[in-house]
C-alpha cells in the first residue's frame, strides 16, 4: 500500500496552517470554517444548503464509514465549499451505499482534507471564533493569506439566492396518494432541506415551494393554510426584503419559521440578530421548552441568533438553548406564529422535535376553526 494522496493545506485567516491529505477535488476553495459535532449524518450535512459558503469540519474522526446512498441527500448536490475530516473511509459498508464519500466529493467537484488534526482546528475556532479558510494543495503561505484577504467575508455573501429554488414547484411524495392532503402549505425556500418537505408531506400537507424572493401577494395568492419559512445560509440581517414580506403576512395565516426562517420572523417582530462566536452545529444541543419546562436534545446548524435584549410583548420566547441561554424559539398565539432556531426535521440528528410539525398543524386547524 503506497500512500498516494497529495498533501493538502488548510490556511486560516489568522495565519495558522494545518496539514493533511487531499480528498475529493483538487481544486482550491475558500469559505467560512465551521465545525459540526454530530457523530453520524455526513451525507445529510454535506447536502444541507445552510452550509453554503462554508468549509465544514466533522469533529467525529471516522467519516465515510457507511458510504453515500441515493436516499439521504438533503438537496441535489453537495453544498459545502470544502470538507475536513480526520479519517476518510475508503471501504464503505452499508447495503444502501452506492458510492464512497471520496467519490461523492469528486463527483461534486468539492475539495477536502483528511488526516488532519480536526480537534486542534476545532479548538482554534472555539476560542477565536469562526474565520475564513482556504483549502489548497499549494503550500505558499503568503499567497494563501493574500487570497483569504481578498475574498468576500461570509457575512457579505448573498447565499440564499444561490440555494433557493428558481421556480415554483409542488412537493408530493411519489407514493400513491393514500394520504389525504388536508393542508395547503406554502414553503418559502431559503435553502430548504428535503426532510422538512418529507415530514410535512407525510402529515398530509400539500406543499408549494416558492423562491426566496416571492412577494407577500404571490405567497398569499396560493391561499395557504400555513406558511413555512425554511432554514438557509447566511446573515439574516441581509434579508430585510423577506422581513417585510413576513410583516405583511403576519396575522393572516399561521406561520412556522425554522432556523433562518425563525431569525427572519424574529426580525419582523422587532428583534435584532447577531453573529455567534462559533455557532451551534451538532446533534446534541439541549433546548428547554419554557412553556412546560421540558428539555430536548436538538439538531442545530446556525451561526447567527436572535438577540434577547429586546422586550417584545407581541411574541414570547418559547424555547431557550441551555448551553448559552440564547433564544431557541418564539411563539405568538394571537397571530399563530411559531418559530424555532433548531431543526425539528432532524436529518441528521435527534428526532425528538418532530412533534413541532404536529403542533403547527394543530395551530392551522385551530386558526381555521376560529376563522369559520
Amino acid at each position: 500500500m503506497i500512500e498516494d494522496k497529495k498533501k493538502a493545506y488548510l490556511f486560516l485567516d489568522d495565519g495558522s496552517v494545518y496539514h493533511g491529505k487531499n480528498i475529493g477535488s483538487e481544486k482550491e476553495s475558500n469559505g467560512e470554517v465551521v465545525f459540526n459535532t454530530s457523530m453520524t449524518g455526513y451525507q445529510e450535512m454535506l447536502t444541507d444548503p445552510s452550509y453554503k459558503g462554508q468549509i465544514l469540519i466533522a469533529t467525529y474522526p471516522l467519516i465515510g464509514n457507511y458510504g453515500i446512498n441515493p436516499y439521504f441527500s438533503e438537496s441535489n448536490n453537495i453544498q459545502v465549499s470544502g470538507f475536513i475530516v480526520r479519517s476518510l473511509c475508503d471501504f464503505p459498508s452499508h447495503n444502501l451505499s452506492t458510492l464512497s464519500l471520496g467519490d461523492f466529493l469528486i463527483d461534486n467537484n468539492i475539495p477536502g482534507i483528511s488526516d488532519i488534526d480536526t480537534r486542534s482546528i476545532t479548538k482554534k475556532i472555539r476560542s477565536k471564533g469562526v474565520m475564513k479558510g482556504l483549502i489548497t494543495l499549494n503550500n505558499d503561505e503568503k499567497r494563501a493569506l493574500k487570497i483569504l484577504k481578498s475574498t468576500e467575508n461570509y457575512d457579505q455573501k448573498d447565499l440564499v439566492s444561490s440555494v433557493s429554488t428558481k421556480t415554483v414547484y409542488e412537493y408530493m411524495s411519489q407514493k400513491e396518494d393514500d394520504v389525504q392532503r388536508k393542508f395547503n402549505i406554502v414553503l418559502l425556500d431559503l435553502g430548504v432541506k428535503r426532510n422538512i418537505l418529507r415530514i410535512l408531506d407525510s402529515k398530509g400537507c400539500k406543499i408549494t415551494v416558492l423562491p426566496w424572493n416571492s412577494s407577500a401577494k404571490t405567497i398569499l395568492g396560493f391561499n395557504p393554510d400555513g406558511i413555512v419559512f425554511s432554514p438557509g445560509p447566511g446573515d439574516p440581517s441581509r434579508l430585510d426584503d423577506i422581513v417585510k414580506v413576513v410583516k405583511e403576512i403576519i396575522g393572516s395565516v399561521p406561520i412556522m419559521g425554522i432556523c433562518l426562517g425563525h431569525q427572519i420572523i424574529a426580525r419582523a417582530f422587532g428583534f435584532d440578530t447577531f453573529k455567534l462566536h462559533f455557532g451551534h452545529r451538532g446533534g446534541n444541543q439541549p433546548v428547554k421548552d419554557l412553556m412546560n419546562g421540558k428539555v430536548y436534545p436538538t439538531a442545530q446548524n446556525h451561526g447567527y441568533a436572535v438577540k434577547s435584549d429586546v422586550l417584545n410583548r407581541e411574541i414570547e420566547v418559547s424555547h431557550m438553548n441551555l448551553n448559552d441561554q440564547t433564544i431557541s424559539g418564539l411563539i405568538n398565539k394571537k397571530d399563530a406564529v411559531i418559530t424555532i432556531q433548531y431543526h425539528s426535521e432532524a436529518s441528521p440528528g435527534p428526532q425528538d422535535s418532530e412533534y413541532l410539525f404536529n403542533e403547527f398543524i394543530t395551530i392551522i386547524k385551530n386558526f381555521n376553526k376560529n376563522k369559520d
Partner: protein
Amino acid sequence: MTQEISKVLIIGSGPIVIGQAAEFDYAGTQACKSLREEGVEVVLVNSNPATIMTDLDVADKVYIEPLTPEIIEKIIIEENPDGILGTLGGQTGLNLVMELDELGILTKHNVKVLGTSITSIKMAEDRDEFRILMNNLNEPVPKSFACSSIKEVLNAAEEIGYPVVVRPAYTLGGSGGGVAKNQEMLESIADSGLKASRVNQVLIEESLVGWKEVEYEVMRDSFDNAITICNMENIDPLGVHTGDSIVVAPSQTLTDKDYQLLRSASLKIIRALSIEGGCNIQFALEPYWITDPNRGELIRKQRYYVIEVNPRVSRSSALASKATGYPIARIAAKIALGKKLDEMTNVVTQKTTAAFEPALDYCVVKIPRWPFDKFEFGDRTIGTQMKATGEVMAIDRTFEAAFLKALRSLDIKNQSQLSELNESGESIDFNPSDSRIWGVMSALRKGMSPNELSKETGFDPWFSNSFLKIIKMEKELSSNSINSDLLLRAKRMGFADSDISKILKISTEEVRNKRIKFGIIPTYKMVDTCAAEFEAFTPYFYSTYETENEAFPIHHDKVIVLGSGPIRIGQGIEFDYCSVHAAWALNKINKKSIMVNSNPETVSTDFDTSERLYFEPLDEESIRNIIDNEIYESNKPKSIVQFGGQTAINLATSLDDSSNPIMGSSAKTIDNASDRVPFEKLTASLKIPQPPGGEVSNIKEAVDVANSIGFPVVVRPSYVLGGMSMEILQNNKELERYFESHSSLFEDFRGSLLVDSYIEGIEVEVDAVCDGRNILIPGIMEHIERAGVHSGDSIAVYPPINLTKKEIEIIVKYTKDIGVALGIKGLMNIQFVIKRFETRVNQDQRSKVYILELNPRSSRTIPFISKVTGVPMIDIAVKIMNGTLLSDLDYKHQLIPNKNFYAVKAPVFSMSKLTGVDTFLGPEMKSTGEVMGIDNNFQSALSKALISSQLQLPRYGKLLLSIADRDKKTSEKLIKLINSKGYNFAATPGTADLIESLGFPSERIEKVLSRHPNAVDLIEDKSIIGVINTVTGDRKTLQDGFQIRRIATERKIPCFTSLDTAYAAIDSSSTVTNFKVKSLEKFVNL
C-alpha cells in the same frame, strides 16, 4: 417529597463474579458521593470488603454483611433509612430490593424505593410483562415464549422453528443460556437454564444470530426528560453476550437514520417504563434496508428488535461513562432523589447542564479479558453466557489505533497483535472464542479477503476491512525500509514500538529512539464530552499521534500511580482499591496524582479520583511516554509500581533501566525479593527458615531436586500471577506429567521453575509497611485451609485463632528482619507456614515458622486488613515512600493489638460460568472475588462469610463424601463432626467403608458414573445438600471426581475440595441462627 429523603440505604453488588465486576464499585462509589453532595446521609451495605464504596470515607455508615433480606431488614431496623437504592448494585442489588418488596419488608419499615419503581423493574425484567409493553408501544420484539418446563420449551421451539435462543430469567451475565440448533441441544441447555433461573423460567426466542447488536445507554428523570448518553456497536454479531463481545463506541456502521431509529425507540421505551435513572437497551439490527428497485426508493427501514432492557446501571453504563466522560451513576443517584437533568451541572464543562448528549471525537474499543490463560482446559468458546472476568478499554482517533491499544492493554504474557496462535497450520476456527480475534488477524495475514472473513464471522465488512488495514501496515513495514512517514503512519495506526521492533527485527529501544529522533511522539487529547465545542476541565486524557498536545506537564510536585489493568483471576478489584487510595494519599501529602489504567470498570479510572487520568495500556512504552510528557523543568515524575498488582510491579525493572525514578522500594529491592537466589541467600543469612528447594530448568534437574528434598513438592514457574501453573506433586510420576503438560512454560518464564518441599501446616499471611528501619503490621491473618491452597482461595481469619504468642513473635521478627534487610520502602506481603511437631516436648520446639513467599507490593488482603483494623495501609505506605519514618507517625507497635471481634474473608468463585474448568482448590488461584463476615465471635463471622460466598450448608440433610485415599486418615475428625451435627452420609465405596468403620451408617453410591446410583444422580435428585470431594494426585479432568465437582457447581450445591474448609463450614453450620448486625465503624472503634 424529595425533601423527606435524608437517609438512604444503598445496596452494593457483593463479590466480584463473572457478569458483575468492579463496575458496580464504580457506580456505588459515585452514587455515595453524589448523594452526600446533596446532604443525604448514606448507609451502604455490601459483602465485598475489597471495594472503595465500603470505605468509611465514602459512605456515612458501612455494613459489610451478607446481602440477604433478613440481614438487610436488620440494618433497616438499626438505621431507619427513608429510602433504598438498589439500581446501582447490579442484578444483585435489583433482585434484593425486589425480594425485600415482595416480603413486605420495605412497606413494614416505611422505606421508599428510590429511582426506578418496583413496578417498572418488574415490567422490564419479567419477560411476559415486557413483551406486552413492547407490543403496546409498537416496538418489535423477537418471537419468544416464557417457559417453566422442558415440555413448554419444546412446544415453543416448535412454534418458532430452530435455531432458538434460551435465556434464563433473572440471572447474571446470562448464565445458563445458549443457542440450540436442534431438540437435543435444546433439552440440555433449557434444563440448565431452568435450574439457573431464580424463578425457574427461561425464555425461548427466535434466533437472530448474525444481526448487528447495538446498545444504547439512556437516562430519564422524573420530569420525563430523557437523553441517550452513548450508543455502542458490538463487533461480534448477535449470539455473543455483550460482556464477551468486542465493543466499539460510538457505532461505526450505522447511518444517521439507523442511529436515530434506535435512539428514538430507546427514548420511547425508557419513557414507557418510567425509568428514573439509567437504563441500558439492547437491539438487534438487521443489516440491510429494503429498497424498491423499480422506483428507486426505500420501501421500509431496517428491521430491528428490542432484545433486552436493563432497568439499572450496568456494566455497559460504566463503559459508556468512561467512553464519554458522562458520569451516569452520579447523575442517576441524583435523579433518584428527584432532581431534573437540567438542574444538574455537567461536571466536565462546569457550565453546561447534565441534560445533554455527549459528542465524541474519538473512537473507543472495549475488549473482554477472559480467564483462559489460567484455565487452559476450560471451554473457550463464547456465546450467550458471559465468561470474561474483566475488560479493557482504549481510546484513540481511529478504530485501528484504539483496537490495537486495547489489545496491548489485555496484558496477556507474550501475546500481541502479531501472535500466531496456531502456527501448526491447522485451519482457523472462526467460531466465537477468546482467541478468535487472533485467528481473524492470522487469516487476513494469510490472504483471506475481508468479505470472506465477514462471511465466516458475521463481522460487518467495515470491521474486516479495518483489520485488513492493520495487516497491510504490517506488510508495508516488513517490506519497506523504515522512514519517518511510514513510522508515523504505523504509530498513528496504533502499532506498539515492541511490535514494530519484531517486524523490523531491531530492538524496541531502537524503534523508540528512531521514533523520537523523527519527532514522532504521542500527543494527549482530552475526553471532554463535547468534541471540543466547549472548554472543558476534565483531567482525562488518551494518547494519539496528532499535532496538538493538550496535556501540558503539571507544574506541581507529582507522582504517577500505575494501575492494575483488567480484572482477572489473581489480580482483582483489590488493586484498584490500592491505586485509588494511593491517589488520595498523595493528595494528602500535597502531591498531584497521575493515574494510568486501562480498565473502564473501576473507580481509579473515574476522572475525579486523581489529579489527572491517562487512559492507557500499562506497558513500558505507554508509561515512558507519559513520564516524558510530564517532564517539567527537566524533572521526571516518580512512579509508584507497588499498588497495581503484578502488572505494575513488573514494570519496575524496565522503568529503572531507562532511568525513570520509582517511588518506594527500589527496582533492586523488588528484584531481590522476587528472584529466588538472592532471596534464599538473604533468608539464610537472617536465619529465617524457608522450605528447601531449588530452581530448575529441565525435568532431570527437577527430579534431582525433588528426590533430595523429598516429596511432596510444590512446583511453580517464577514470576507469575496468582499461582499460575502451580501444583503440589506427590511422586516422580506426577512430576513427569507436570513437565509434559507445561512444556511451554520453559520458553515463557525466563526458563525457571521452582521446586520446593511442600510443608503441610498452618498458613499465615502478613501485610506490613516497612520504612527501611522498622515495620508496622496492622494484623495477622490465619488461613483456614492448610498450606497448599492458594492464599487467594483460602478463607482467612483476623485475628488468628490458633497461633501461639511465641509464633506471633517469630512472625513479627521475621517480617521486620526481612523487610529491613531487603530495604523495603512501602508495602510487602508475606506468606508463612507454621509446622507443628506434636511429639516434641520442649515448648519452644513445638513448631517451626517457614517463610513461603514475599511480595514487595500491596496484596489482595490490603483492603480487608485496612478495613478491619482501621489502619490505613496505603496512606501510611505512601507517606513512608515519601520519606516519612514510621516513628514519625502515631503507630507505636510493630504489630497492632488485636481488635475485639473476628473478621473472616472468604473466596467466591464463578465456576458455574466456566464450563470445563475443574473446581478443586489447589495452589493455583481460581476465585474471582471475595466476601467478608464480621462479628463478635469467630463462628458468627465465619457463618456470615459462608452465607455471602454461598457455601453455607443447610442445618439438616445428607452430605456426599468421596475422599481420596491419601486424605482418609485425616478426614476421620471431619466425619465425626458431620455425625455429631446430625447430618447423614452418602459416600463412594472406599469412603463409605471408612465412615462405617467409625460406626456411622452411610448410603453407598457407585464410584463410576456409568453405574447407578452415583454421585451425579444424587446431586440431580437434589437429595444431598453438599459435597466433600478431595482430589487424587493425578488430575486428569475426565475423572469421575471432576464430573461430581462440576455438577455440584452448576447446581449451586456447596462443594468442598479441602477438608479444612469443609470442617469449618460444618462446624459453623448450625451454631448461629440469629445474626446481629453492626456498622463497620462501630466494630473497628470498639
